[in-house]
């Protein structure tokens, strides 16, 4: 899946302090020794990513590398930043503070007076109003617009039903006050708005189609501006002197390299040409650790991986059969065999790091959401469960007469390995036959869309860190995996929709978590899907890079990163 590679890419992003002093134009006297950092020496960070930045227009370009670049050059209202110990926090950015009304449906942001664009023009509430209204216009086709569908007042009408984009619930009361009305209380709204990077009306209209295509025709509100850009190899960013927090921004320059080949990135890192890298390859990882000048971060990705069952299938319509498939393989062994332990076993749909308000969901439901474990405890013999399922369907209980098709998510080595592993496991444990259909990932999505699959490997990276970010994709009416794709048309599905609607109006943290628990039970315990794993990514950062953290969600706070060589 695309999403997975993107998130992986984020984590594998490499920072490198440029061959440090040598690259600083010889300002430093101690350059040959590379020992002490000269005060007044330029701080240069060499960062790398494994895929290209598609464009700098934050409204139209929203792939993961784009988002990483936008995070460097634009200043949203709030920032979802990674902090010490690789945790997340949503904190003030161009808005110095915000207030929420009592019913939780009106947000008022106070924009900093000193916030500016790189050309010195003040960054105001009007810019954010303009940006959101632009996104609500279907003719603009903003790639992230759908995030605000069913969230901001009037947005759905404007985007999908011919309503007036100017009439959405966003208003700049004055230059420094922005009011946003949403249609149901959602504690995660501040996090959602963190991906809203502004554009400015005058230049957006003047440059039109060219906005964000070249560095000259882009406006910057964040800590850095783009100095030069060669799309498939390098973007050079330098400090934005007009940034409101320029004083505290430590780096002078970021060399953002595009390196698609992991071995190249690792060798460059080891040679001191890069300062941050990631790898899945154990041999390289050992070499890096042996060098002793790096810190290692190992963090699970936010994407969860699961198997989808097509409930329209003659066998898979039965809950027990799906449950048997869910528990019909050993997840620990799976993760060990396929990923050398570089992944986390998932026995729940919702990852443990997911928040409800200021607490984790798992904590609030007291770990009761580990439904795969519950299933295993209740059914020691998966094969028996499968046979019971066959009996319920009035079919022959000989499992060897059952053949199920398994769609891989790509034709690469990994997909092959996973497919073979699952075939072997399910055939051994359940006595059934699995037929592997190898296909490219985009073809797999087509097949899912047409309902032409039985079991498919799938995954999803949520756009905000709250249970509904993952659950809503399975909502049978409007979710990405709606009932046409999953075949989930039974009463459980209707109940699931009801629960999610109920959750939208709930403001109490504990009650909200309990609703999600019920919903997750329908999804996982009744085995509409089978959660499997979350990838873990090892990143290595040179010790002289400070203030750079990696977390499952969230962006780096670039103004905090420094190179202290």
């Amino acid at each position: 899946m695309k999403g997975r590679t993107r998130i992986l890419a984020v984590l594998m992003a490499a920072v490198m302090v440029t061959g440090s002093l040598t690259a600083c134009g010889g300002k430093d006297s101690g350059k040959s020794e590379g020992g002490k950092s000269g005060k007044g020496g330029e701080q240069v960070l060499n960062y790398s990513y494994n895929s290209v930045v598609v464009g700098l227009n934050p409204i139209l370009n929203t792939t993961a590398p784009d988002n990483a670049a936008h995070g460097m050059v634009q200043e949203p209202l709030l920032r979802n930043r990674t902090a010490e110990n690789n945790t997340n926090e949503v904190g003030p950015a161009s808005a110095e503070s915000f207030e929420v009304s009592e019913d939780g449906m009106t947000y008022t942001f106070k924009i900093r007076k000193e916030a500016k664009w790189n050309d010195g023009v003040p960054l105001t509430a009007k810019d954010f109003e303009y940006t959101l209204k632009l996104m609500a216009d279907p003719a603009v086709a903003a790639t992230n617009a759908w995030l605000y569908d069913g969230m901001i007042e009037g947005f759905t009408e404007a985007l999908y039903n011919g309503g007036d984009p100017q009439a959405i619930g966003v208003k700049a009361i004055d230059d420094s006050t922005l009011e946003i009305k949403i249609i149901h209380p959602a504690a995660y709204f501040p996090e959602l708005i963190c991906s809203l990077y502004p554009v400015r009306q005058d230049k957006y209209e003047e440059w039109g189609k060219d906005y964000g295509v070249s560095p000259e025709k882009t406006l910057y509100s964040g800590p850095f501006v783009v100095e030069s850009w060669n799309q498939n190899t390098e973007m050079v960013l330098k400090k934005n002197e007009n940034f409101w927090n320029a004083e505290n921004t430590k780096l002078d320059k970021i060399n953002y390299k595009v390196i698609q080949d992991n071995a190249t990135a690792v060798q460059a890192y080891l040679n001191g040409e890069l300062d941050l890298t990631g790898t899945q390859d154990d041999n390289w990882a050992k070499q890096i650790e042996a060098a002793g000048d790096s810190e290692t971060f190992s963090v699970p990705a936010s994407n969860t991986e699961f198997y989808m069952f097509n409930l329209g299938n003659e066998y898979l319509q039965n809950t027990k059969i799906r449950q048997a498939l869910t528990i019909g393989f050993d997840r620990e062994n799976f993760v060990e065999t396929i990923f050398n332990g570089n992944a986390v076993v998932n026995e729940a749909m919702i990852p443990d790091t997911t928040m409800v308000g200021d607490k984790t969901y798992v904590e609030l439901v007291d770990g009761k959401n580990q439904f795969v474990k519950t299933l295993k405890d209740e059914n020691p013999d998966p094969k028996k469960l499968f046979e019971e399922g066959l009996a319920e369907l009035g079919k022959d209980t000989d499992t060897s007469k059952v053949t199920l098709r398994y769609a891989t998510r790509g034709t690469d080595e990994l997909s092959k390995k996973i497919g073979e592993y699952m075939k072997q496991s399910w055939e051994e444990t359940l006595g059934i036959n699995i037929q592997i259909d190898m296909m490219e990932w985009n073809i797999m999505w087509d097949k899912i869309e047409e309902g032409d699959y039985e079991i498919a490997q799938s995954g999803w990276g949520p756009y905000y860190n709250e249970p509904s970010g993952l659950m809503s994709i399975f909502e049978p009416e409007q979710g990405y995996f709606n009932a046409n794709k999953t075949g989930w048309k039974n009463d459980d599905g209707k109940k699931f929709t009801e629960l999610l609607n109920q959750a939208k109006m709930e403001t109490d943290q504990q009650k909200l978590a309990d609703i999600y628990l019920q919903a997750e039970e329908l999804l996982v315990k009744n085995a509409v899907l089978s959660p499997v794993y979350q990838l873990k990514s090892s990143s290595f950062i040179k010790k002289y890079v400070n203030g750079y953290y990696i977390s499952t969600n969230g962006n780096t706070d670039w103004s905090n990163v420094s190179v202290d060589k």
Partner: protein
Amino acid sequence: MLKFLGKRLAFGILTLFLIATATFFLVAGAPGDPIAAKVGQMPEQAQEIISAKYGLDKPLFQRYALYMKNLVTKGDFGESIIYTGKTANDVIKENTMVSAKIGLIALVFQVSIGLSLGLVSALKRGKAADHVIRVLVVLAICVPSFVFAAVLQYFLAFKWKLVPVFGWGQWTNYVLPVAAYALGGIASYTKYMRSSTLGVIGEDYIVTAKAKGCTSRRTLRKHVLRNSLIPIVTMVGPALSGIFAGSFVIEKMFAIPGLGFYYVKAVSDNDYTMIIGLTIFFAMLFVGALILVDILYGIVDPRIRVAKGSK
């Protein structure tokens, strides 16, 4: 000659038109969706809005007509679906020369080293030098360029730190990709030159030349070399057009801003404006190169010129 050229040109244009049409329908018929590749997973309704913006909701023939109209009247390959605001024309302008520089330098090495080795090998047939060259040639042909590139990268850049591991802009950045790119070609040219030379050496006119008292140096230059180069010309033409395309694998390995990346990525993304644009561009180069080869033939081999003229 002019008539001949005109005819070739007309056929070339027809070929290009057919290629453009075939590519358009092949890409349109291929499974997968550029919008999905662009935005990843998002609700259907939201995807439809984006599809509509790129005109993908229109009937196929209408899209084809529009595409051809822009192509013929404006020479416009159209805006990429993935790279917002960029056209295939932009990408060709920005990246072709990078690929071409590496390719051209590599080609010079390929031809000069390859032809010399081939000639030596043929003249010293059966001697030690011939054996060594032949073994090396087999080896070089068998080793894929990316393996050779990885080995070079590991030793020259990583272990011995003679050149940077990756990058673009300094002359040191050329060393690894050029070497990796050239190796296979050197081997092929050596092989072809050897067999071609051997073929010529056995011809009666060489015996005649020797018999009439030609020095061996003169025989080599005037008779052997000239004749054994004819098949090589056939190879160099298309190779010349190939250098613009670059090598995806090598460009990826050394992070070089060439054209290869866009071409391969466009195909996996179903980015049809980009695929067709680049395909036509390469087809143009290829067709052009073939015409060039035809002309060169005439120069190298008078027999062909005569044959054409007598028609």
